[in-house]
């Protein structure tokens, strides 16, 4: 029995020492300039004052500028989006924020992969960011065990150690800081990548399709978000952010996703806007200056798009019929589109 007790004691001491060492290495990352932890601290400071939220993945993170939303709509907004944010992540974050803020409106970004993104195949990247964005120890622990698969624990541990080591290197070089200068109420501008947008549209026209197999947990969490907003008496607006013309031309099944989201909106009495179909998109959001890559708006484009979005909302609020501002489908859009550069 003494042998067994000694072994258990050694295991416990080892785990304690390992935890302390690991925490020491990771600590610089958690209190440093990391975007997601910075974001959760900023939201905690603004807690109780925010009334307008944008929630989505990287399209929304790069596309919606809270400063323009605040200016045009007279709100105090925050962009909750992050790269690869899962539907579960969106629900958990909205649940957190709607419970501590007097929210009136939520804009939920839905794109071609919001319902088809398979968490089991994709891996934990979006959930790693979510763990940063959630505030507090217990919500993070709860989310960790609900979202992260056991087979991913090793990778998660590696990820945090790696981030910690990189911060230690910055400390050694004197470049570590706990202020993220790129953060603007959840919005982060994106760098331009020319090559992706330099394509011969005639050659690439309708050569690819997006995945259409729905991952059921995504639908469950979408329904949960809808129910949450109803429960909190919050207006929920479904939005598809603009994609580059290269992408709209290349993929042949964007109407499929538009119809899905229209059905969801109709069944739940919600508004849905697909900003790829807005009539003046090509003039106001040309690939050459508005987009940083095939799927994401650049800073200038985000400003223009956010203004376009607020104009639509303001017109809706004024009782105008905004449906005339949009094409009815991608087929209709393409009949008006030229494939010359």
């Amino acid at each position, binding site marked *: 029995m003494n*042998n*067994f007790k000694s072994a258990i004691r*050694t295991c416990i*001491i080892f785990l304690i*020492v390992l935890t302390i060492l690991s925490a020491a290495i990771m600590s610089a990352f958690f209190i440093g300039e990391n975007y997601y932890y910075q974001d959760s601290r900023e939201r905690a400071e603004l807690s109780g004052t925010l009334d307008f939220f944008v929630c989505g993945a990287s399209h929304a993170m790069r596309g919606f500028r809270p400063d323009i939303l605040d200016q045009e709509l007279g709100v105090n907004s925050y962009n909750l989006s992050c790269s690869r944010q899962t539907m579960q992540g969106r629900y958990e974050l909205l649940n957190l924020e709607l419970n501590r803020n007097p929210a009136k409106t939520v804009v939920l970004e839905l794109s071609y992969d919001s319902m088809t993104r398979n968490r089991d195949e994709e891996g934990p990247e979006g959930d790693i960011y979510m763990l940063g964005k959630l505030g507090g120890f217990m919500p993070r622990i709860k989310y960790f065990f609900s979202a992260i698969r*056991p*087979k991913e624990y*090793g990778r998660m541990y590696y990820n945090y*150690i*790696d981030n910690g080591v990189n911060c230690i290197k910055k400390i050694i070089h004197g470049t570590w800081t706990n202020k993220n200068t790129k953060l603007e109420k959840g919005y982060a501008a994106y760098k331009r990548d020319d090559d992706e947008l330099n394509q011969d549209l005639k050659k690439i026209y309708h050569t690819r399709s997006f995945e259409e197999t729905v991952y059921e947990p995504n639908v469950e969490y979408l329904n949960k978000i809808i129910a949450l907003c109803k429960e909190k008496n919050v207006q929920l607006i479904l939005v598809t952010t603009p994609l580059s013309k290269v992408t709209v031309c290349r993929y042949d099944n964007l109407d499929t996703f538009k119809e899905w989201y229209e059905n969801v909106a109709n069944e739940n009495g919600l508004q849905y806007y697909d900003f790829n179909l807005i009539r003046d998109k090509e003039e106001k959001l040309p690939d050459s200056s508005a987009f940083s890559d095939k799927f994401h708006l650049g800073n200038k484009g985000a400003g223009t798009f956010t203004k376009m979005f607020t104009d639509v909302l303001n017109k809706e609020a004024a009782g105008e019929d905004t449906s005339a501002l949009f094409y009815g489908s991608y087929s209709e859009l393409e009949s008006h589109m030229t494939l010359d550069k």
Partner: protein
Amino acid sequence: MDLLTLGFLLFCIVLVIVYYLVPKAMQWWILLAASLYFYAMSGIKNMIYVLITALSTYAATRMIQSLTDRQKEWIKANKKTTSKEERAAYKAHIQAKRRAILVAALLLNFGILCTFKYLHFLIAQVNTVISSFGASPINDTLKLIIPLGISFYTFQTMGYLVDVYWNKYPAEKNFGRVLLFVSFFPQMTQGPISNYKDLTTELFKEHTFTYHHFSWGAQRMFWGFFKKMVVANVLSAYVQDVFANYASYSGITTLIGAFMYSVQIYADFSGYMDMMCGFCEVLDIRLTENFERPYFSKSIAEYWRRWHSSLGAWFKTYIYYPMAMVKWNQKLGRWAKQKLGKTFGQTVPASVALVVVWLTTGLWHGASWAYIAWGGVNGIFIIVSLWMETVYASWKQKLGINEASWGWRAFQTIRTFILVTFIKVLPEVGTLSDGFGLWKQIFTNHTIPRSFHALLPFVDKKMPLLAVMIGTILIFVTSLIQRRQPIRQWLEDHTNYAVRVLIFAVLFIVIVYFGYPASGNGGGFMYEQF
């Protein structure tokens, strides 16, 4: 089941807990259940071959034993009533039956092994020959996947079969015990190839949990993980790059790549051994050691006594000695002694046996001419050393070389390491001509790289390389310490409990940090392929 996963770690933890909770008489049943579960995870179909081997070996050994017992009883009962010739005839009759059962069981099991490992190679060679005569080649559409560990458990089990035939010990009556001997999972995929007596003594004795075994076993497992994940896996990416692109690299870069391969394969294989031997130590089971600081060897022959020594011992016992003692070889030896002198009288039979041993060793490692050539080259070095032993001794005497001197031993060690490296890479680059191509690149491309990137173009980031270098130095230093005492004993003598816990906590973090991203490059173990 992949060893480098959380799933395997949980499997080990559950096994240890259950193992020590059950009554001691049931412990080997737990090991059997765990082994069958482990193997089933690799594919239920693969279990068929393990069961065939276990059943055929069990049946064959029981039949051979029964004939042996029958012979003894008959001789005892009829000693006074039969003549010497009658008893000899009876013995010969029984022996013929025993031999027939042995041969049948060997043919069945080696037949299965050879079909999976060598069928495609044989078909390819036949096609080469018949194509040269203008005939149409045989259509090879069979997609045979080699069952996990078949080379190891077949050799181990056939060793047991031959031992029973040789009356070394009686056949096991309990099929479950034979099945555990065949399928014991820690050694199933990469060895060591154990002797039946040694392994079963360990497996079937009563095991009591002790803190000493637990902590030493766990420490050894940690060390094995470090060697595999930090050193072997990181080097794997570099070595693969060198072997794929040696034609465009300088001779020095290619040579560095070859040396890296030597370190990689040692860290990979010995790392696995450390993991499994460490785990077995936690279970109070001692496995045969497979490595004894092989890169400190002073000759090729000594290297092969220290590297994968269980395979060498198997070949020595079941191939070398029988070949050396077979009548026609002994006759050849007498002829050589008559014609060429006493020295050749001894070395010729040994050389013939060595040729057979090394060609089959090459084939065991892989079904290709490159592996056969690899075995042949090793054999040639050993045979030439055997023949030249007295000549070398006279040269050393004339040159006044002190064999015990540090300088001479260092020269021998470095020379052997370089030779072993060159021989090792021959089959690993691809085909035999690729192997020779790599050798040629080392010796003929004299470009001097002028920068770090030119010297090591396959290195993206410096930190993993630094980890590998430190890891290699650590392996070297622990090997030096282990010449006098086990490293774990050294740690206990020179550090306190707190320092040891800290060392292993740091080691854990290093393994995860440097080992995790690299595990995708060389996730499997190299000797699993054999």
